[in-house]
């Protein structure tokens, strides 16, 4: 059985969060993500959850980290300026291995920019925004259905890897209305309570699988800190080895599981000379451009990045092994473009369609680029 809804992207995100078991939301109003907060303010009390409108974004992400250690799946939603404010505490969530979900409905930037227009300018902010070395997980939906699905997936990944997960949507997806189908049996990954109170180490290296995470008040008496800490959580700030082990483990946790996390969707790449790589709203233009180009007999395919972070290097290398030209279509002046450039060999020509101003690259723009390259 399944249910169908015709709803807005931001509402679908809120719906997905509730389905995934989110029972605590702290946020601050910011266009174009406010509908996520508004929907959850209405819906959370109905299921016994809590909604708090905090005093700013810094406090919002602080509150959801606190909520997560309080034994509740927690989320916040924001846009570019808010994400900038959140960065310090996002770094804290990484080092303290706290599962949280941060939804970023991107808008024209930098600074206040274009509050009501779409952009994809925060991709590198999600990657490198906080200080220090860490490996984020980010999902990028390109339809309302995916906004729903990816929010659930974000909660699952957060619990699985005990790490913050970003959902990098954009204003187009956030404010678009589409039909979504909600299946009855969706996989939800619950948190694991550790069993052995005496020998439990909250920050231990677990090779395969998740180190269980206790909630506060259950008698584990754990110390959670943003300082460099050992397996027990006790600060140990002067030992180079402890710091190296900790940060390396936090990065490896994601990098060694790329095969489980990374996901791309692609079409007709096997024989393609030209491949369009995109994520988020521009994927919709890429799909249209590929179908038009194919009908004209041109060998064109597309790759859609479901998870921009960690960057799906292997998948892109494999899928584009026969291509001579790659077009990266995104709504910024080239962010993922350089990632693609880094991954692919030098003899592949990489072209950028970087469109800013609030509108996404159109199929015509992509097609004229294809013609310019001279696909046949």
């Amino acid at each position, binding site marked *: 059985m399944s249910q169908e809804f015709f709803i807005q992207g931001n509402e679908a995100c809120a719906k997905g969060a509730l389905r995934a078991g989110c029972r605590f939301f702290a946020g601050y109003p910011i266009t174009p993500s406010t509908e996520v907060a508004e929907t959850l303010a209405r819906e959370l009390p109905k299921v016994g959850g809590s909604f708090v409108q905090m005093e700013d974004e810094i406090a919002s992400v602080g509150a959801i980290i606190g909520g*997560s250690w*309080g*034994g509740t799946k927690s989320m916040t939603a924001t846009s570019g300026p808010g994400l900038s404010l959140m960065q310090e505490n996002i770094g804290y969530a990484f080092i303290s291995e706290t599962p949280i979900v941060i939804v970023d409905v991107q808008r024209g930037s930098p600074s206040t920019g274009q509050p009501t227009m779409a952009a994809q300018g925060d991709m590198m902010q999600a990657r490198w925004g906080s200080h220090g070395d860490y490996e984020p997980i980010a999902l990028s939906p390109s339809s309302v259905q995916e906004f729903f699905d990816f929010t659930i997936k974000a909660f699952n990944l957060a619990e699985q890897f005990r790490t913050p997960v970003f959902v990098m949507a954009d204003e187009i997806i956030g404010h678009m209305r589409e039909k979504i189908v909600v299946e009855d049996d969706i996989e939800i990954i619950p*948190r694991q309570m550790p069993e052995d109170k005496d020998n439990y180490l909250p920050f231990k290296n677990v090779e395969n699988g998740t180190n269980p995470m206790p909630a506060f*008040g259950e008698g584990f008496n754990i110390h959670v800190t943003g300082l460099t800490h050992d397996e027990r959580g006790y600060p140990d700030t002067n030992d180079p080895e402890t710091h190296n082990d900790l940060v390396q483990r936090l990065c490896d946790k994601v990098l060694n599981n790329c095969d489980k996390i990374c996901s791309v969707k692609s079409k007709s790449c096997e024989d393609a000379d030209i491949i369009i790589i995109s994520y988020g709203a521009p994927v919709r233009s890429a799909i249209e451009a590929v179908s038009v180009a194919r009908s004209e007999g041109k060998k064109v395919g597309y790759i859609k990045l479901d998870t921009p972070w960690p960057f799906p290097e292997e998948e892109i290398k494999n899928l584009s092994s026969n291509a001579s030209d790659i077009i990266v279509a995104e709504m910024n002046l080239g962010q993922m473009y350089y990632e693609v450039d880094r991954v692919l060999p030098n003899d592949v020509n990489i072209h950028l369609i970087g469109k800013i101003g609030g509108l996404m690259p159109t199929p015509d723009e992509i097609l004229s680029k294809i013609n310019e390259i001279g696909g046949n």
Partner: protein
Amino acid sequence: MSSDENKFTPYMRKDRLPHIFCPGCGNGTIMNAFLKGMEKAEMDFDNIAMVSGIGCSSRIPGYMNCDSLHTTHGRALSFATGLKTANKSLDVVVFTGDGDCASIGGNHLIHAARRNINLTVICINNNIYGMTGGQISPTSPKGSFGTTAPYGNQDTPFNLAELVAAAGATYSARWTTIQIENLVTSIKDGLKNPGFSFIEVVTQCPTYYGRKNKLRTPTAMVAIMKANTIFKSSADRMRERDLEGKIVVGEFAKKQKAEFTENIERISEEKFGNKTVINSAYETEL
């Protein structure tokens, strides 16, 4: 328990003692006073969760044998708000300092007080930034010296207990580390108060404040503190210029008001029935 065992160390992470605080630092005293106040309030220590920010004072939860969250600079109150809202049954205590809660975390402080969320905040006010090496803080008295005020501090300090009382806290008090009995009783009252409780403890920092202000030993600092302390009841009858440089101690707010998490629960229960699940993240089906 044998009578020769120290009364406070059973509550502490003994493997981490002695703690990092300088000789004569008031933080250790405040740890003791908190534990005494907690015993007197007949609280369950296992149900206490401690949250702190950054600074000397914020290292305290790391030495306490309970669930503790040592967070980013100034944000302790926002983490505590989330923790308390997510699990209303926890007794959340926040240890913070003057730089932590009055400077970088000032916004969170007044908003937590405005919400009247059931937290007990113990603000350890040593009038200086100790951990970074003696810079002046928003509570440094006028004319005091710090590494960033080599010619004397020209700014007017914050009166934190009054500020928090004005922002809507239901319990606000100020004591110093030498009025131990009052401090313990105040911490007990704060823990029992079902709302935002703020206890400012003026303390000595002989290492930095003392060194910069010609009060090098802990006992010299404490003696000056004792001489400058005035009870609120007397201070109310004094002129403002006579109060300059004095530490006014006493209770600045003690009232009852609807509590934040109770409000959330009440609305949810009245309209939709009691559906709250504690530790809901561990449930497969909700």
